[in-house]
């Protein structure tokens, strides 16, 4: 009902305003692509690889948005769980796709636990979910370092010296996943225009998309949307708000966990202490580039976002080097663009929220006035 109303009222200016970020990125890409001098086939190959690599992770952000908890910076927690699973699997010398499956299963309890913890904390910080989940990712990074840098090898047995630090405990800076590398992507080989298509990864992403579409229609999904709309109303309707919110974060963390395993099998190795720390930021930036906002995100946003964001990421350094003669400029530019996108999206969301609030306030005052006049 309310959505229909919105659709009727949409003016061209509104459409433009709602899509500022994607349009900006399209312009940036349109300028940078010719400057970068990359061939279309190279770009196509890169983009396909990156879509396969990253989409699953970005999809993990959708469910907390549905539950009104904003952008889940705590998805980093899931990524950490996935990395712990991969380190263990690597030490046990399990290889190929079984290794991926095992890593996911091993890290699943960790992800559930972390997600539950994160959800509980976020319930204590209602209205400040984003900054809290953001600080949460830093806090957990400390715990992660405690486990991986000090407990692995001393308490948690690690046998192989190629991943253990020479001092006898702690994991090395990089863990090689060579015997797992692109095993999923290349399970069903297919070449289009000279580009390897990660068919199996795309199938899994499609399955997740169907899951999300189905999930929205379930009782739990409906509850989540109700909680996202208005917590008080949802509570009055008999929905367990706290529990629903925790579940949404747990699901997101689990998906981020699986997503990280898929991401890293494509990369073929990972930086033990820094791979996860930036992943949340980049996934959120990519989602926002696709036109999502803090309270609304669709699967379409994910795909548009991952394409545009990665296009910018590929071409910016080369284009920057062409314009300024310094390759670092482009590197810094793409970092700046990612942060600026998140800033703009957050500002737009808050101003919109404020406008809506003052509008309802005015309406309320008007109704009161009318009632008084009638009395």
């Amino acid at each position, binding site marked *: 009902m309310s959505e229909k109303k919105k659709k009727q009222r949409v003016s061209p200016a509104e459409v433009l305003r709602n899509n500022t970020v994607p349009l900006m990125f399209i312009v940036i890409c349109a300028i940078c692509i010719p400057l970068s001098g990359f061939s279309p086939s190279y770009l196509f190959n890169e983009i396909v690889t990156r879509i396969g690599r990253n989409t699953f992770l970005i999809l993990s952000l959708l469910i907390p948005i549905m539950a009104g908890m904003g952008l889940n910076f705590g998805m980093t927690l899931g990524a950490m769980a996935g990395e712990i699973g991969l380190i263990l699997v690597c030490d046990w010398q399990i290889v190929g796709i079984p290794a991926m499956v095992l890593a996911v299963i091993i890290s699943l309890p960790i992800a559930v636990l972390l997600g539950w913890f994160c959800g509980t904390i976020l319930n204590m910080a209602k209205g*400040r979910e984003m900054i809290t989940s*953001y600080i949460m990712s830093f806090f957990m990074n400390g715990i992660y370092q405690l486990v991986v840098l000090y407990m692995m090898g001393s308490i948690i047995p690690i046998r192989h010296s190629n991943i253990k630090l020479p001092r006898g405990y702690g994991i090395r800076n990089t863990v090689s996943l060579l015997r797992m590398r692109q095993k999923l992507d290349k399970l069903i080989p297919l070449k289009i225009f000279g580009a390897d298509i990660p068919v199996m990864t795309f199938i899994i992403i499609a399955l997740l998309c169907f899951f999300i579409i189905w999930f929205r229609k379930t009782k739990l999904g409906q509850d989540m949307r109700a909680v996202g709309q208005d917590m008080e109303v949802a509570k009055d309707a008999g929905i367990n708000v706290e529990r629903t919110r925790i579940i949404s974060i747990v699901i997101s963390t689990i998906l981020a966990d699986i997503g990280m395993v898929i991401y890293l099998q494509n990369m073929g190795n990972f930086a033990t202490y820094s791979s996860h720390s930036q992943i949340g930021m980049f996934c959120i930036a990519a989602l926002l580039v696709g036109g999502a906002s803090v309270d609304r995100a669709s699967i379409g946003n994910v795909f548009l976002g991952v394409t545009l964001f990665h296009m910018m990421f590929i071409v910016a350094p080369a284009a920057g080097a062409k314009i*300024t003669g310094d390759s670092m400029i482009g590197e*810094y530019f793409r970092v700046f663009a990612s*942060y600026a996108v*998140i800033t703009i999206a957050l*500002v737009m969301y*808050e101003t919109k929220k404020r406008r809506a609030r003052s509008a309802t306030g005015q309406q309320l005052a008007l109704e009161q006035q009318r009632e008084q006049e009638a009395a």
Partner: protein
Amino acid sequence: MNENTIEKKGIKETLSDALKSFGLPRIIIAGFLLLLYIMAPIVGADLPTQITNTINRFSWNAIMVLAMVPMVHSGCGLNFGLPLGIISGLLGATLSIEFGFTGGFSFVMAILLATPFALLLGTGYGWLLNKIKGGEMMIATYVGFSSVSFMCMMWLLLPYDSPNMVWGMAGKGLRTTISLEGYYDQALASILQIKIGNFEIPTGTLLFFALFAFAIWAFLHTKTGTAMTAVGSNPVFARASGINVDKMRLLSVVMSTWLAAIGILVYEQGFGFIQLYMAPFYMALPAVSAILIGGASVNKASIANVIIGTFLFQGIVTMTPTVMNNMVHMDMSEVVRIIVSQGMILYALTRKTEATR
């Protein structure tokens, strides 16, 4: 007898109230620091050196922590956008060197040159925060990040050419770290410095901080200052009593930004280097957690919180590596620092605050 029990209960209650207001995490952290100081001589660390280090680091960081106070008072929350102020300070520092000022005078000039940037950026930042009331902290964080990454490009592109600052080979683009030797290295610390064996006190820096702390304290007791506090504690009431809420908030943000600019300059004079590019990126977090450790909350902060908090935080930062290293030959200080500081911020964010908008 009856009276007696009531009185006893009263004492108990006041005690538990005091405990509650001080907060369990703070007691744990203070206890931990005390333990570190007791352990230090036992494990063979030189206590005077340790105390000197703590005091030094306190003097470098205190003003950046102080920068939190105005924004907390006006209800803008914790200033996660501290890097914006830091950038103003960095601009002042680099320009002062570029224009050829040397010695202690370059410090004064750095402050003077940083001020217009701080005022300008602070005004823009304050204007933005007025548009998005209620979502300040998250947006502040990203304003900080965006500005730092934007300045990364600028440090490369701006036409600096002082040979002490640019890359030697290319002759352009600022270096990531710039030595302050010959400029304002120890400019404040060397004033009235007290030296007894291994024990040193950077009196000048401490006095400089005291000056600012007193100024902020005095400001908060002026008419404008109380109005600012009123805006933070009850914006509806403040508006009703004729205070311009947006103007007060703007003023507090400008003050915070300027203090951050001064704060980074003081930090540099103690540290001896200017750090550019990604260095200011996470500088807000230690300052935020320090003031929270000192007993502040998202909407309440005093000068005492700043002093206690900076001391406790910097104490832990300096003491853990030495004690841990001497004790278990394992440098877990980084992990301890992350868990303590981020845990403290998490704790503060989950507290129910009186004035939730």
